[in-house]
């Protein structure tokens, strides 16, 4: 076994995780220990660079300093890329369920993969989006789906999970498991997205 390690090996591992996450379209668990190790490496690198810079002649800096600097900026970039990539994935998940934040946060499987800061982030994100949505609240819901243009006004749905009484244009409907309803698509689209109802085609 070869035990030698280069600067930036750990950061490569971190970026590989992001790549895997993209390829499998799957959110991996927040890798706290790896992030911490890289931050530790950053501190060591900074110290090494400092010592070198102090000892060296300012007019004739040793090339080693450049290596340290490059390693530092690469590690930092990888760290930021990892976190930003995760945020992007979380935002995609958020929009995919039509902005139903409790739906994401109450899912213990997803919740376990998030760092506490990411949960905070999602909450703030949600409030920003909701504020923006309010601008259009009287005319339309900007959170509704934009993947398929509407073809019919009504849709036949099959109830997969109980979701209680919902206000629709035809009055309130009590959706109970295994029932079928013909309802206006705009009224219940968010329930399809969140998996309570299924479209019968």
């Amino acid at each position: 076994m070869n035990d030698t390690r280069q600067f930036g090996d750990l950061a490569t591992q971190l970026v590989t995780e992001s790549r895997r996450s993209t390829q499998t379209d799957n959110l991996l668990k927040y890798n706290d220990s790896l992030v911490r190790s890289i931050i530790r490496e950053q501190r060591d690198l900074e110290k090494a660079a400092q010592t070198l810079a102090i000892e060296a002649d300012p007019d004739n800096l040793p090339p080693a300093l450049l290596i340290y600097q490059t390693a530092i900026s690469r590690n930092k970039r990888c760290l930021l890329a990892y976190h930003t990539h995760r945020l992007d994935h979380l935002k995609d998940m958020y929009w995919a369920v039509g902005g139903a934040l409790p739906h994401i946060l109450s899912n213990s499987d997803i919740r376990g993969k998030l760092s506490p800061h990411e949960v905070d982030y999602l909450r703030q994100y949600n409030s920003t989006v909701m504020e923006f949505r309010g601008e259009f609240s009287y005319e339309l819901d900007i959170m509704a789906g934009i993947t398929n243009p509407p073809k019919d006004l009504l849709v036949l749905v099959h109830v997969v999970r109980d979701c209680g009484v919902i206000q629709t244009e035809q009055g309130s409907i009590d959706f109970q498991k295994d029932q079928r309803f013909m309802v206006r698509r705009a009224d219940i689209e968010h329930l399809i997205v969140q998996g309570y109802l299924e479209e019968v085609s």
Partner: protein
Amino acid sequence: MDWDDEDALLATSSKGDALDFLNLDAPAPTETETPLSELIRHWMNERHAPTILAAQEQLLGLLLDHIRRQTDAVQALRGHPSTSEEEHIRIMLVQTEVERVKFIVRSYIRTRLYKIEKYARFITTDAEIQTRLTTAEKAYASSQAQHTDRHLHYSVLQSLPPAQAHLDDQPIFVPPMVTQPNKSRAVFAYALKECPPVRLPDGTTLTLEKDQLTLVPFYVVEHLVERGTAELV
């Protein structure tokens, strides 16, 4: 009951006074362009352009007003006892059309939101791009940039040595970390009418004839798209 208003949406061709002043600085490429087809053009441009295009606040406001009026009218008519069977069918058609218009409006708004999120940090530092956003969009961009900054600060930057704890440094050998729109991305531009000559990256000029389709970097045709003489497809 006033049916004209309902039918107007099906055609959306009510060329009222409100439209004429809209076309003052951006002459309509075709005489028959309706508010909806105008929005569809902006929607397609927005979806194809690498950067954020100018906000169409007046046009959007006009359509939103229209949606609201139609929805209210439909509500009133549906509940009215004297509405005949034939009229109910027409109401359904209007409702379907309203849903379709909503879809385009929604998609247009969301396309812009997506880009605003992507370039949030760049938007907060660039005055030129801010002129193309609405007030609500600007607020959205700055709070996005703030939240992302804060998240990165708490997760990474605060633990790094002070010398490294900035987001906007310009590291050597690598591009800057703030994502910027890439205006040299290739786009398909379709000339709606004859365009003034444009300069290509290799120094030659190109004159787009009416109905000509060409593949060029976005910045070459940016001003044509803005003026409405060309559209992205």
